[in-house]
């Protein structure tokens, strides 16, 4: 499958967030939880298709719909990605 590479940035709406913590489980390594259970996004962009899928899954899983995704196409040549 050939896909145009995209970079996904994840951010948390701090008003909606209620510390359910699912984002930290699904995006382990990219989102951690503070002492009160609220997410800290480490800021590294998610640049693989697999990570992009995980990010979308995390956004859907959040009971408060507090995880927002921003996708930007990364300019450059398309790469072959296995799903």
């Amino acid at each position, binding site marked *: 499958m050939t896909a145009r590479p995209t970079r996904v940035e994840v951010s948390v709406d*701090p008003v909606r967030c209620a510390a359910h913590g699912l984002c930290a489980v699904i995006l382990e390594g990219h989102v951690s939880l503070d002492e*009160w259970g609220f997410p800290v996004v480490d800021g590294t962009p998610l640049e693989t298709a697999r990570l992009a899928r995980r990010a979308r899954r995390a956004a859907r899983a959040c009971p408060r719909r507090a995880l927002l995704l921003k996708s930007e196409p990364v300019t450059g040549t398309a790469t072959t990605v296995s799903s």
Partner: protein
Amino acid sequence: MTAAYETAPGRSAIGRVGDDNGVLLAGPVDGWADLATHRTRWTGRRPAPGRLVDLIETGGLCGRGGGQFPFARKLRTLLDQPAHRRTAAPVVVNASESEPASRKDHTLLTRRPHLVLDGAALVAAEAGVGEVVLHLHDGADEAVRVLRAAIGERHAAGLDDPVWRLSLGPARYVAGEASAVLSFVEGGPALPRWSPEPAAVSGLWGLPTLISNAETMAQLAAMVELGPQEWRDAGPGPWSGPLLLTLAGCVTQPGDVVEVVGPATVGRVLAEAGGLHEPPAAVLVGGYAGTWLPGPVAWRLPLDRTGLASAGASIGCGLLAVLPADACGLAETARLVGWLAGEGAGQCGPCALGLPRLGTTFDALAGGAGRVVPELHRLAASVDGRGACRHPDGVARLARSALQTFAADLRRHRWGRTCEHAGRAPLLPLPADHR
């Protein structure tokens, strides 16, 4: 920086309401400048359509509500939005001034209302917007009275004005934040909102909205009248524009509003306008969520962006709160942190949970628990940037700058002992219903 001082015009002064030293504050000493008086100094002329943004960019006007956002960029963003959308939402003038010790906006609104109204009218005209909302806090009775009278004069004179609407919101600290004002004007609670887009893209009801501080509007009117070059040169160094400040703490007249024209240091303002003869122990610069600086450092600091930034501070909402040698900076800070913690919206977990903890921990430090200093640093870092608005960021800044500036006092606040001044009556004012 030195070059800018050399090229500034010879005038360099500190003005008050009614004397001729100021630019914005010049005019009648008593009461407010009615339309006829106002028009003897300010013609209210407007630039040619389409020219305003370039003019503002040349002058370098930055928002005076605390954020210092470049106004040209804000207006340009708004004007880039589709016309049918950006003309659908009113311009909002944020005249809430929730900062407890700040009085510069109150002074402009109650003494020079037509400057604010001229500025708002001209930006509304440029944006093609037919309505301006003037948002104030409940209890700002004098400002409401003067604004109503001033608007009445403008109607009677048949000025080419937008429709003026007065909005009164709850007098809470966080209710003065821009997105909280928008939320309230929409009919919702006066609580900040989180948005990935600035208000100029998506504000009231998702429409592009220009919301700015009342002083920013007055400065805009002044800049259009004087021309960007003269307006910019009237500021302290590379600052841009005359600077309105409120003095607080141990000055001769706490609550005094002064206007700095031309280059000046903090020390010069405190000496000439505050009655100080020597550097104080410390100065809180920018607001209660601002930066503590040691007195001798603040004293020499030029009141321009570069100078303040070099000391890690920013002008914020123009507050200079002076701490004398016989007060305890840690105790004062603990009280401010406690109050600020209670003024949060309670919407964002890290802020709602972290600030009260920061408050009680700072209380412990003020009471002699020196060992909590690392915990204070940790808490400040854990709340910084974690909310929908910059409230927790400001409290973190206040706490960190206090720990740095009052480092010598930390050595005395240990093992249950405090410095000899910790028990004195608090100096910095908080709203009357606070303990």
